[in-house]
């Protein structure tokens, strides 16, 4: 049986139309319930255009002041204490003035500042180099300015660690679980082979709570929306002279420092 050109074209056209409409009908029938459901942001959640933090160093006087803040963060986020600097995992930690603000040191700065520890954490840069280099978008910048980690996507390439000028990222060289003294059942741990860092407590902001370190700091850490002129951080920033870490690199850190010894240097 032969088929002429006209018959063939008719048949081809008909099957194309059937194929196109047919698949959409099948898709419609297979539409699952989950797609029909919605997701919302919690009503209590705190929101901002750009979250930022001011660290008032004069409020940190004793060893205990630093410890309680670091402990608050590390215990709720299940950060392991491996106890060896090579494998160390840290979200918030301290270092000297010289290491915190390289290029800003001189011989004659007050003793109280020269030997004072400074709190360090992820700067949640406006222009984050770690995000640019991540090949899987495991680290990304949220709309509210938080530089976030999606551990599900991290492949452990450590490009972000090389890119971060502030050393804010830690790699899990080994399974962290045996090194967590008390696990917080409400927050996951990490696994061997992923990078982690501070997330500005995104999980607490979603529930309407300020970051854990801010809550524990007795006013030493001020947290708020940098884009809102009426916010607490903006008020503090307009009232005090502040500096940021390595501003010359142009990453635009969102963590500001008020420098003061907290002692009676003016007395």
């Amino acid at each position, binding site marked *: 049986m032969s088929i002429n050109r006209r018959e063939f074209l008719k048949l081809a056209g008909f099957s194309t139309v059937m194929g196109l409409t047919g698949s959409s009908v099948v898709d419609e029938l297979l539409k699952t*319930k989950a797609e029909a*459901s919605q*997701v*919302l942001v919690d009503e209590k959640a705190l929101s901002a255009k750009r979250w930022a933090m001011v660290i008032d160093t004069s409020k940190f006087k004793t060893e205990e002041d630093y410890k309680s803040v670091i402990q608050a963060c590390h215990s709720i986020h299940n950060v392991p204490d491996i106890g060896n600097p090579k494998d160390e995992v840290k979200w918030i930690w301290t270092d000297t003035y010289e290491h915190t603000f390289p290029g800003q040191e001189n011989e004659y700065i007050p003793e109280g500042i020269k030997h004072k520890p400074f709190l360090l954490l992820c700067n949640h840069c406006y222009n984050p180099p770690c995000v640019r280099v991540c090949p899987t978008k495991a680290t990304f910048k949220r709309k509210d300015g938080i530089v*976030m980690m999606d551990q*599900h996507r991290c492949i452990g390439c450590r490009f972000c660690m090389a890119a971060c000028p502030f050393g804010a990222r830690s790699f899990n060289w080994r399974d962290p679980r045996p090194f967590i003294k008390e696990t917080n059942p409400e927050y*996951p741990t990490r696994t061997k082979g992923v990078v982690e860092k501070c997330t500005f407590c995104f999980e607490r902001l979603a529930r309407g709570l300020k970051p854990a370190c801010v809550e524990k700091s007795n006013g030493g850490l001020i947290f708020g929306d940098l884009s809102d002129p009426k916010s607490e951080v903006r008020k503090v920033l307009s009232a005090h002279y502040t500096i940021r870490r390595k501003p010359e690199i142009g990453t635009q850190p969102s963590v500001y420092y008020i420098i003061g010894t907290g002692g009676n240097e003016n007395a």
Partner: protein
Amino acid sequence: MYDGGKIIVGLIIFVGLVTFPILYNMGKPAAMPELKLNTPEIQQLQEKHCVESKEYMRANHMQLLNDWRDWAVRDGKRVYVNSEGKHFTISLQDTCMHCHSNKKEFCDRCHTYANVKPYCWSCHLAPKEKET
């Protein structure tokens, strides 16, 4: 063929050994895993209902969890409104595992049966197993 008899006998034994597991289990269905749903947390619930229907969860929980993960971590949206309009907090550890506090008798039974090895638990903490 030299030693033909020995070779053929050897081949028959070899084929027998290799196909033994298949032939042995032929026609015998492996026992369906039985899931335990009577955790203390579920017994306390007034209305024993998961975030979606039982049938939907059985077939699609992995897609749902995948969506939940992206919504919570990437989009920052943590409230799930189900097909009946009820609200749930999006969290594997705090919502799913709060009720299903028996990972060994719930998650693991099917996953072992189906030989799937989800890597949720390398980071997410499973609830402490209770004696039942």
